[in-house]
């Protein structure tokens, strides 16, 4: 098995707020991330595909194709957007790094034509990230 990783960056704003909680609880739990006007990050996404290289092309998955999938599914959907209001898949969820990583996994997994999605790692900043993978794959690559 070979693991191929493609990185991309996008910028987006978000706000942590749960309408089921009081204003005071929201402030206590989410702190400054509860600011009503939102705030933004430069996100870095690493997408890892696992597979065997094709005997003819030598590729696990053509990077051009992966780049197009990432552009269509992620960049066009999330780049320069307010995640809470403009990304349908995040409706009703707090757009934490964990939840955004899971949404990205669910968007990408059915679209990968060769090999399979192994890991999604989403950096909200250099010091904070979330990893998403299927249980069985833990610890590889």
């Amino acid at each position, binding site marked *: 098995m070979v693991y191929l990783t493609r990185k991309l960056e996008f910028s987006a704003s978000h706000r*942590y707020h*749960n309408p*089921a*909680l009081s204003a005071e609880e929201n402030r206590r*739990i*989410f*702190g400054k991330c509860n600011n009503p006007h939102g705030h933004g990050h430069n996100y870095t996404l690493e997408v890892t595909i696992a597979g065997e290289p094709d005997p003819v092309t030598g590729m696990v998955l053509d990077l051009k194709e992966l780049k197009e999938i990432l552009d269509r599914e992620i960049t066009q959907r999330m780049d320069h957007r307010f995640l809470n209001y403009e990304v349908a898949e995040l409706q009703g*969820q*707090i*757009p*934490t*790094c*964990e*939840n955004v*990583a*899971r949404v990205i*996994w669910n968007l990408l997994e059915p679209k990968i034509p060769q090999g399979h999605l192994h890991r999604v*790692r989403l950096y909200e900043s*250099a*010091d*904070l*990230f*979330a*990893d*998403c*993978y*299927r*249980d*069985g*794959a*833990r*610890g590889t690559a």
Partner: protein
Amino acid sequence: MKDTLQLELGRRYHFAASHRLHSGKLSEQENCRIFGKCSNPYGHGHNYTVEVRFSGDVNPTTGMIANLADLDAFVNEQVIEPFDRRSLQDEVPEFRESVPTTENLCIEIFRRLKSFPIAKLASVRVEETSNNSFAYAGE
């Protein structure tokens, strides 16, 4: 059936400390041969980066595996406060007997963080410099 999705929260922390690689069980000559300039009696320092990963269920109310305020407070208390701007072999009791290599540092940090009550510690990776890193995921 496919395995279920698993999420991990990753966080990086930074501290600076000095250490000296020297074993009381070896002769001066052996220490010099094995540890080279890292055995300099006055020690030397690094800017360490600690990358921790925690696994757990995402709390449906907060959208989080662990609130960063809780995680940061725990890591600060257990690792950053006791290690930052310290001499590891002189000021961290666990390194009085064992050599403060970054391998041992990784294991010690894992030991200190595995009791985090909110999520399960999955791994600790320590970068001693941007070129050297060590990881430990428990026994």
